[in-house]
């Protein structure tokens, strides 16, 4: 549970500045596509474990 909680925070929370739109936002979107998959696999992994 702790790992999922951390990954969720780092990926979905935290400050986002409306920055250098042409580069930053496009890159960030791509980054997120990959990481959503990662997050769901982590969540699946954690399901069978004892809560910590």
């Amino acid at each position: 549970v702790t790992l999922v909680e951390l990954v969720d925070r780092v990926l979905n929370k935290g400050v986002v500045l409306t920055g250098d739109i042409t580069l930053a936002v496009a890159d960030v979107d791509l980054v997120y596509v990959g990481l959503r998959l990662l997050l769901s696999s982590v969540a699946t992994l954690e399901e069978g474990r004892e809560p910590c």
Partner: protein
Amino acid sequence: VLILYAVAECPLPSPLPPGALGEPLVQLDADGIVGLAGAVEQAPEPSEAAVLAHARVVEALAELSDPLLPARFGSLHRTPEALADALRREAETLAAALRAVEGCVEVGVRGVAPETGFEEPPASGKEYLERRRAEAKLVERVHGPLAAQARAARLERDRVFAASYLVPRDRLDDFLGAVRTRAEDEPELGLVCSGPWPPYSFAGGVA
């Protein structure tokens, strides 16, 4: 590109920890809002290791600065000037968020029980509404007292319980005690705690 790790109120004492890719960190002071960033050749590959490395840099910075706003993973800026401009544009919001989180840590509370005990599909619209009402009451019994003990609170999901609380550091033990009480009173939720985290969920302000 520059990777933003966190935002602070004033420059941090050196030495700063290295960035997620081992790069040296730079501090950009944009009129009283300080961006902590690392200059790298290219954006980090998105991976679990990269996310954890980002989290470690934020943790290390949080030990050097209170208040500190963690940046989301993948916050990229092309040049120092672009980052400084972005910080300046949002200076007011960032300053308010920094004030709000000062002296506080974030605690996550989540229900890990598979369901709240309503496995059968509802027989009628009336039954559905009654269940939803019962669930809402259950959530309020947990969330209400915890939110009252926190400086700010975010309820993320109201069915399988998930919430974040901004808790003053010196009230942390009392808060964890309150979570324990809730967990014992409502065992069907399977409440667990996580943290204390840097205030990721409150980095955008607490309004």
